[in-house]
């Protein structure tokens, strides 16, 4: 049983507010269905074509419709362009199952990229004609070392007429992806690294809507993040016991919280001073706990690191440096990005009276909003997030 890890992002054509590419992802009981559609033209028209195509495809396939029925419906539904007298959107459909099996149907998008541990994997495709559309179908099996990437033509054409006469081209994108398919590179990182390269090739003015969708498989991982002491101190013990009994790893954010966990476990807490910076307090170590950090200051920095990392327009080098740094906030960000599918946040509601003094900028309201922000941003990373107030 694998978890289908997927992330996508787009650059809009320069000057356009709407993207003419659209990706739709739906979770189904046995895996995920993803559709990347690229509508004809750009702006509003393209956006409508791409959105309708991907939404119809995902919805019908999820309910068990055949590819023929789905294409029929799309053809009958798309509005016809007044200028071109055509209704047209390319698409790539992917069904990835928890077992690792994958089915792909491609229509006019750049061919999919399939890599495994730094090497290209060849895909056998079967050509089929459905309602005058030439569709290429393929079936293959992914494992934890595989990387599947789908792009819109804005990627293979990146830089046309600017930095590159012929654009980036499929085979060069394929080479670029090879090192990204080794090690633990998260799909988010793959997606944004490719988009950042496109942004450079386009000299910051993309000539077309540019979209990347990356798919990987891995073991499902759960993190229980415990922050803030529970409202009722008499219940500390019971609550900690309950959290410790949950499936997954435990992370503790907060000085007092860490102290009560260490007391309950009967394990001494050590502090690793090598991780201390003038901005971020150091990490602690308690046997059996994945990560121990200070609370508000660290979480605030973590949110910032993730936000910059997710933003394809943010300087990639700076974002990666911040993420790889040896401090508590970066460690928490790495854990959430790379090794977390489900995040349960256990929010203790006890108020530290000193935090409510007027010269202290991070009182209980700040703290509660911050946790919501952390939940939001982690959800945007594609993780399943639950908040539990204790």
């Amino acid at each position, binding site marked *: 049983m694998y978890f289908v890890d997927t992330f996508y992002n787009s650059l809009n054509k320069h000057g356009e507010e709407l993207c003419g590419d659209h990706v739709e992802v739906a979770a189904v009981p046995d895996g995920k269905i993803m559709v990347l559609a690229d509508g004809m033209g750009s702006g509003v028209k393209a956006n409508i074509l791409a959105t309708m195509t991907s939404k119809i495809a995902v919805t019908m396939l999820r309910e068990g419709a055949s590819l023929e029925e789905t294409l029929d419906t799309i053809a009958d539904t798309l509005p016809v362009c007044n200028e071109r007298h055509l209704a047209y959107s390319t698409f790539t459909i992917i069904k990835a199952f928890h077992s690792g099996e994958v089915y792909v149907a491609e229509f006019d998008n750049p061919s999919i990229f399939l890599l495994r541990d730094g090497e290209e994997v060849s895909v056998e495709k079967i050509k089929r004609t459905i309602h005058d559309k030439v569709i290429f179908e393929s079936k293959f099996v992914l494992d934890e070392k595989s990387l599947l990437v789908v792009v819109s033509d804005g990627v293979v054409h990146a830089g046309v007429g600017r930095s590159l006469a012929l654009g980036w081209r499929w085979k060069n994108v394929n080479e670029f992806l090879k090192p990204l398919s080794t090690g633990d590179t998260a799909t988010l990182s793959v997606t944004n690294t490719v988009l950042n390269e496109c942004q450079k090739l386009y000299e910051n003015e993309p000539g077309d809507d540019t979209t990347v969708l990356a798919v990987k498989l891995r073991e499902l991982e759960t993190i229980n993040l415990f922050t803030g002491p529970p409202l009722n101190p008499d219940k500390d013990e019971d609550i900690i016991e309950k959290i410790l009994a949950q499936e997954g790893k435990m992370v503790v954010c*907060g*000085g*007092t919280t*860490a*102290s009560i966990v260490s007391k309950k476990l009967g394990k001494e*807490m050590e*502090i690793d*001073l090598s991780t*201390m*910076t*003038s901005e971020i*307090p*150091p990490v*602690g170590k308690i046997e059996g706990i994945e990560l*121990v950090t*200070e*609370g*508000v*200051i660290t979480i605030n920095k973590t949110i910032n690191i993730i936000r910059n990392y997710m933003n394809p327009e943010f300087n990639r080098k700076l974002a990666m440096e911040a993420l790889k740094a040896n401090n508590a906030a970066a460690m928490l960000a790495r854990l959430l990005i790379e090794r977390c599918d489900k995040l349960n946040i256990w929010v203790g509601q006890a108020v*530290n*009276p*000193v*935090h409510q003094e007027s010269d*202290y*900028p*991070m009182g209980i309201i700040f703290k509660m909003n911050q946790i919501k922000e952390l939940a939001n941003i982690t959800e945007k990373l594609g993780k399943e997030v639950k908040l539990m107030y204790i």
Partner: protein
Amino acid sequence: MTIQVCIGSVCHLKGSYDVIGQLEDLIEKNELSEKVDIKAAFCLGNCVGAVCVKFNGEMYSVQPSNVGEFFENVVKKQVI
């Protein structure tokens, strides 16, 4: 002997990073590294007195501006 310095949220904002740095320098200057070491601690429970420092069983409130004083009057006297 160990000097424990709190690095919880409040103490961090009140300058525990500085306090630890200064104490490290003072220990080295006075050649006491074999007798005294510094450890950080999460929340020593006295946020009102930030930055909280615990030494030889006693709690002290130390600021970056009076680390020298604390070192002369408390640490040195008990160590030497």
